[in-house]
């Protein structure tokens, strides 16, 4: 059997076709659509930069952009700290530890829909568990409505999303932790290092490749959040918890403003690209690929 130059490409055809037609194609189409006004049922109408100009003149869009940034800035550190803490907890060799590992991972594999619905129940001011308990012991009549009040809705969503996703990042951190050779800790113990010093000078630096990976997927995760918003707040009240992806969905499939939604997608694309670029540019400053 002799291989020609073309042979590997033949094997790649299915993948390449898929990539071209189902990834690249729609991306280019969306780019074109972002310069049009297009309600799907009628032919698109070319309006140049009209959609982008409208976006940056819209108070609502700027609020949504702000919400998206806040979501990322709070979610990413939040989920990473919680996940690392959980990973450190379950990294102990105690009896029944696998049970806890499973427990913390459970929300990740639970359907977002059920999580959204159940958290909405828990947080319901009129019927919810938390409010009933607090009322029973402290009898505070009107607690803030964590989902219904514009001041808290976004942060409540972030909290629930961290609660749901932390198990995933925990598993990644756990794998990273178990790759750190035990001898470093032994040596440090002999030198009289405290737990904090061991964490600060051994765990964190040696974990940095994992941390880098977790950082990137957490950022992407935070920018992609959709289902929880859709189920718990629908972007309300008054756009207070709307983020880019949710807004793209609403404009594309509820208001049938494909052009406008495509323009939003491209702005999201630019944001993701910038984040990723910054990550790779500055990773040498803190990521140690030791060996």
């Amino acid at each position, binding site marked *: 059997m002799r291989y020609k130059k073309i042979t590997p490409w033949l094997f790649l055809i299915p993948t390449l076709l898929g990539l071209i037609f189902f990834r690249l194609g729609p991306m280019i189409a969306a780019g074109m659509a972002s310069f049009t006004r297009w*309600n*799907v*049922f*009628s*032919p698109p109408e070319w309006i140049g930069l009209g959609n982008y100009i409208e976006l940056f003149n*819209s108070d*609502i869009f700027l609020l949504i952009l702000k919400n998206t940034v806040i979501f990322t800035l709070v979610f990413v550190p939040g989920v990473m700290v919680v996940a690392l803490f959980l990973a450190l907890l379950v990294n102990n060799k105690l009896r029944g530890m696998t049970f806890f590992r499973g427990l913390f991972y459970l929300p990740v594999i639970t359907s977002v829909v059920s999580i959204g619905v159940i958290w*909405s*129940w*828990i*947080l*319901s*001011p*009129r*019927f*919810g568990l938390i409010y009933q308990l607090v009322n029973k012991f402290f*009898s505070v*009549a*009107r607690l803030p*409505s964590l*989902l*219904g*009040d*514009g001041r808290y809705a976004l942060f409540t969503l972030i909290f629930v999303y961290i609660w749901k996703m932390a198990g995933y990042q925990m598993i990644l951190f756990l794998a990273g932790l178990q790759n750190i050779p035990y001898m470093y800790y032994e040596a440090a113990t002999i030198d009289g290092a405290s737990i904090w010093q061991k964490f600060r000078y051994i765990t964190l630096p040696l974990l940095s490749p994992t941390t880098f990976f977790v950082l990137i997927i957490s950022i992407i995760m935070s920018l992609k959040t959709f289902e929880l918003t*859709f189920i718990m*707040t*629908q*972007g*309300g*009240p*008054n*756009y*207070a*918890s*709307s983020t880019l992806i949710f807004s793209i969905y*609403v404009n594309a*499939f*509820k*208001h*049938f*403003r494909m052009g406008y939604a495509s323009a939003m997608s491209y702005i999201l694309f630019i944001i993701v690209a910038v984040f990723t670029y910054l990550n790779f540019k500055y990773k040498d400053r803190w990521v140690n690929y030791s060996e």
Partner: protein
Amino acid sequence: MQKKLWIISLSALLVLCFAFTAYAQTTTIRYFMWDPEFKDLEQGLIDEFEAENPDIEVEFTALEPSNYWPKISAMASAGELPDVFNMSSGYIDQWAGDGLLMNIQDEVDKLPQDDYFTKVFSTLRYPDKESSDMYGIPYAWVTTVLYYNKDMFDEAGIDYPSDDWSWEDFRKAAQALTIDENDDGVAEQYGFWWYGRYAHVEPWIYANGGRILNEDKTRIAVDAKAKEALNFLADLSNEYNVSPPKRDIVGIRQQDMFPLQQTAMWVDGSWNVAHVRQMGEGAFDWGIAKVPQGPSAEAGEYEAYGWPDSLVISKESKHKEAAWKLVKYLIGKNRPLESYMAGKVPINKSLANSDEWLEKDKQPAEMNIILELGEMMGRTSFTPGWGEWRGYADTGGAGMNGVLDSITNGEMTVEEAVETFTKYGNEVLERYYPEE
């Protein structure tokens, strides 16, 4: 062997010929519907239609609304719209405006007008709701009514809502029906429940003769009567505390408040009769009434708020005659009543007035009120982009809906709210009507 082959190919040819002639004689039309729940009933109706019209074959598809609209829109852009399909009042202007729908006025004129609730036809006219031609015809319509819990009224010792109730009477009843036993400011039982939803607010505005759009429906323009209605509702929330703030109604569907007996009164669409029946099953006695007429409405001129669910024919349809035949059949009196959710009204009057629709053995006893309202239908506020500026369904936290919610939360005054949603609403409308 050769002989056998000859016979087989000849007979195959024969079959093909027959099939072809049969095919050539029948017209195939495609019909898309947005309610899969009633798919079987609809199919039964279509079977009857096909039996009566052997030359017409109907290809029938039913999709959930969330799939229906993207699918239909994509088909429209590909120039492959079904011949007959469902259309909502919120979208018809856009579709008619883009030239996708057939003008059916001439056909409608041939129908015996007395057989139908013609008052609800106006929504389907384009561009002018009073005088233009129709681009669709309803198979059903709904309106908004006041639901009330008879047990709670009895308990409080007050009379049930009557036709001549004023807003003042309504407010007093709501106060008497609000019960806050531990006096903590959060009532265990509310007298009423409203938030920014279109089916909660517009009935009051129209019952007061108010308008939220200008005469041409090209801009948001809230008039004094509409503001009066909004102020009345705002006071129910903030001044009298007889309706809960929207932010407290989380983790419960808004339509469950009444059947779960959290509130004594509620204004929403008549189709919720089915929901209240199912959820409140035997738990309490309840009835429906007209939304009380406002103080500024012209006496004797009651304006009900309602809208139809309709059928339209594609402008590009190659079988318009057959399509209209099907539409006529679908809106006729052969349609099974079970295909109407309780509280949705058949467009055909003889169907609507039948005992089977009135269901006297079930609650509410006042189903005839819905039929009366059908004769009093007034204006609606549907425009192109309505769902966007109004804030509807999945986007209820947005648009005018979201802003009005802020009133119930005590975060905005009526003046501020009107100013805000007028500004945002007009940004939407300006896209469709650049010049007023």
